[in-house]
């Protein structure tokens, strides 16, 4: 199949969309902006209070001085809230033509038609389209946007929103998020309900110099199962935009959550997220992510294994091309006995891109018999790219604990390349095949459409490489 070279239209992934909005805040961030956002959304008082408190924390925290250069990020130029013209439509046909076209390009309706149980799309800062199969609703599953959840399920939101999982004091960008958050998914799965189909959302950022701060909460009650998929994209503009989302996952006893995200922001976006899961007894959380886009990414999904026998699995693929500086990683924090975690991070750098792994494994007292294995592999496609691996391992319990970390970085093996070329593939095809093999373990776990999209994006980047190998 490798000889069927796919023709890739890059513009498809960076489509610009006409601007439609009914309300937007002035660029920059003041207390007034936050009050405006809150009143525009008709929020209850307690949420405004939380926003203002987060803002105080944001102001008091310094910018991180480690990792990528954030000096070009100017909070005064960013529009923190944009409300699109359309309110939520519950069927595809109700959406205006241009928005529909964008989603068409991104392939959303196809997914929806085929097999998706519920699907939401977040355009600018608001959710514009979402649908949930009737039978799910009957099971008691809640799948809505977080703004609606604030109004309809205030007790749930009060309990779970930025409290024990990701408090605003966690980091500067979590605090910023707490102050200006808007949109995102809210998922509640009642005890012993297994959601049979994946729930899906797509985020689009269409404006220049925009901030998007979606907040996603997934609550999987005891014995339940849910599979959530999100995709992100944005057209390319010259001014930098900021994306700073927060994802909070609560995996209760014996529950199982799979969180899949495919990020393909355009290369003008700062992508600084905080994602974390709290996992109770025998719970399982799986993080699967592919990150292709953005200018700067700092993303370290965390799993807090706090119940006996809890498990976490992190699988990530990262690709850094020209002008990209991306840091990914996994934070595994263990405080309960007989837990286990596995991290596989694969990264590919090409055309001068920088891709790094920065991770943490923290084993607290009492985490008897826990096992953690971390594996990071980096493939460097040319000599101008850069890769780094900085894992932190903090081990405070010694009983039956096994922690291991392995990393490897290098280029495509010339013997492999030679073999494939001797079998009749040209160099480009052979390279693409090797790269596909490299990321295979993660691709297998992705839904088919996403795997195809990711494959195409990687092929696109490889086709841009200068001819000769090494």
């Amino acid at each position: 199949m490798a000889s069927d070279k796919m023709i890739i239209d890059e513009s498809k992934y960076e489509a610009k969309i006409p601007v439609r909005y009914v309300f937007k805040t002035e660029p920059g961030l003041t207390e007034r902006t936050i009050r405006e956002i809150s009143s525009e959304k008709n929020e209850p008082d307690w949420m405004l209070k939380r926003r203002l408190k987060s803002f105080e924390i944001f102001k008091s925290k310094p910018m991180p001085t480690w990792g990528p250069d954030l000096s070009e990020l100017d909070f005064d130029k960013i529009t923190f809230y944009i409300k699109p013209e359309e309110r939520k439509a519950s069927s595809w046909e109700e959406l205006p033509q241009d928005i529909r076209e964008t989603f068409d390009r991104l392939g959303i309706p196809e997914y929806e038609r085929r097999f998706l149980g519920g699907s939401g799309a977040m355009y600018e800062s608001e959710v514009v389209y979402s649908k949930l199969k009737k039978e799910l609703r009957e099971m008691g599953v809640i799948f809505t946007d977080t703004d609606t959840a604030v109004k309809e399920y205030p007790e749930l939101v009060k309990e779970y929103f930025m409290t024990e999982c990701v408090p605003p004091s966690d980091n500067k960008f979590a605090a910023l998020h707490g102050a200006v958050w808007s949109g995102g998914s809210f998922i509640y799965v009642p005890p012993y309900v297994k959601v049979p189909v994946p729930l899906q959302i797509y985020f689009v950022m269409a404006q220049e110099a925009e901030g998007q701060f979606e907040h996603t909460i997934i609550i999987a009650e005891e014995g339940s199962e849910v599979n959530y998929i999100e995709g992100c994209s944005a057209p390319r503009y010259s001014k930098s935009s900021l994306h700073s989302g927060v994802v909070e996952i609560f995996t209760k006893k014996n529950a199982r959550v799979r969180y899949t995200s495919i990020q393909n922001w355009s290369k003008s976006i700062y992508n600084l997220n905080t994602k974390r899961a709290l996992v109770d007894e025998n719970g399982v959380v799986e993080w699967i992510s592919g990150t292709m886009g953005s200018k700067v990414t700092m993303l370290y999904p965390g799993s807090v294994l706090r119940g006996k026998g809890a498990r976490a699995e992190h699988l990530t693929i990262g690709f850094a091309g020209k002008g990209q500086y991306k840091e990914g990683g996994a934070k595994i924090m263990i405080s309960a006995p007989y837990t286990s975690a596995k991290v596989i991070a694969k990264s590919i750098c090409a055309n001068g891109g920088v891709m790094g792994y920065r991770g943490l494994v923290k084993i607290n007292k009492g985490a008897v018999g826990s096992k953690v294995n971390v594996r990071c592999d980096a493939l460097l496609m040319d000599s101008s790219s850069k890769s780094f691996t900085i894992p932190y391992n903090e081990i405070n319990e010694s009983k039956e604990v096994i922690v291991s970390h392995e990393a490897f970085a290098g280029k495509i093996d010339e013997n492999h390349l030679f073999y494939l070329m001797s079998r009749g593939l040209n160099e480009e095809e052979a390279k693409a095949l090797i790269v596909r093999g490299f990321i295979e373990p993660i691709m297998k776990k992705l839904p088919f459409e996403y795997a195809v999209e990711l494959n195409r994006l990687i092929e696109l980047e490889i086709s841009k490489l200068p001819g000769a190998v090494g």
Partner: protein
Amino acid sequence: MANNYNSSDDKMSLSINLIKEISRLRKEPEWMMEKRIKAWKIFEDLPMPQWRYFEEEKSKLHYAEEWKYTSQYFSGLNLSKFVPSIEFEDLSTKELKEKRKRSGFLVQKNSRTVSIALKDDLKNKGVIFSSLRTALIDYPELVKKYFMELVPPSEDKFTALHGALWNGGAFLYVPSDVELNLPLQSSYYVTSGKAFFNHTLIIAEPNSSITYFEDYKSNSQEQALHTEVVEIYLKKGSKVNFYAIQDWGNKIYNFSIRRSLLDNDSIINYIIGFFGGKLSRTSLDSLLKGSNAKSNNFVMFFGRENQHLDINTNTFHEAKNTNSQTLVKGGLKDDATSVYRGKIKIDREASRSDANLSERVLLLSDKAHSYAVPSLEIENNEVKAGHGIAVSQIDDDQLFYLMSRGLKRVDAEKLIVQGFFEPIIQLMPVNDLRLKFQSIIRDRIER
């Protein structure tokens, strides 16, 4: 001739005047005094390393990632308490009889040279081996050319203090094509005093070959500060084996940096036994500046009681076809903590380089802590680089096997731990050094 100052004088404290006085009494050249003063000023300017900045000090932000996990111990540490004694040896120290199995040796007790020797045939070939203080007077130009060029005082606060107050240490110069068949040994003993700052310079001219062994011991119960800087310059085709055992008493704060600069085709082999001190930090650095240069770093550590051991290895590949291998193995018992940061950086120019790093830690108690931060930074795609760490306990299967053969549990454990270190010890070609390492490890496990 001996100039003795009473260091227990309470009025004496660290100051620029003290530094001038030391330099004058030691009859140092003017430029050295200036260097000391400059280092002192850097010392005064630099804050104590801390990795977390505090809100109220945002303006004075000093972020030192590499001190994470260790800087927390500095809160009760007042550096100005550690005043070095201003007493030193007579310059005309008489030379003792040659020890067998050594090319030469140097013994310093409380930073004073007690004895020094070098085989006559090596002397005739132009090898220079002396205390750094003597070298400063006999070969000022050589010392000036190399002193603190590789490890500048601005490195950190402790190194700056070292630059201002250095007192003990050795100087070794080996001319081109000279090979030392037997090891050279420097032994440092501390019986009293508060502060020791050893500086060692090793210059290996083209195609020379050196085996150098350093040994630190103390029986003092006083709280003391020890800093060490070793600068090793390897010219084209030279080879240096650098072995060391650090076995300080449990009241000593110890900060050491050993750094080598490697020209084309040169090789450095470090084997370090890192055992003593209340808080000990060591840095083992190789700058691979010449093509085909090679660096092998082996560290063994064993922590007990409430020791805090902080081990750093930094390997910078800056030229083509360079090669490095790092292996750190350690055991921890009681409340001991180990921190390991291993860094490999491969520059854009360093194509066809190969780097590998691994750490293995055996936790032998419930209260021991281990932190590890291996890092890879790679800017060239024509390289191979990898790292791995593993933290675990004594393997049950191994234990079971030995016990089934009739060993008691404690003996079986002891044997396994000793066997754990053995692969590194066997890399040393000198038999009596192997025995020395083995006996120290045995002693550490038992006590």
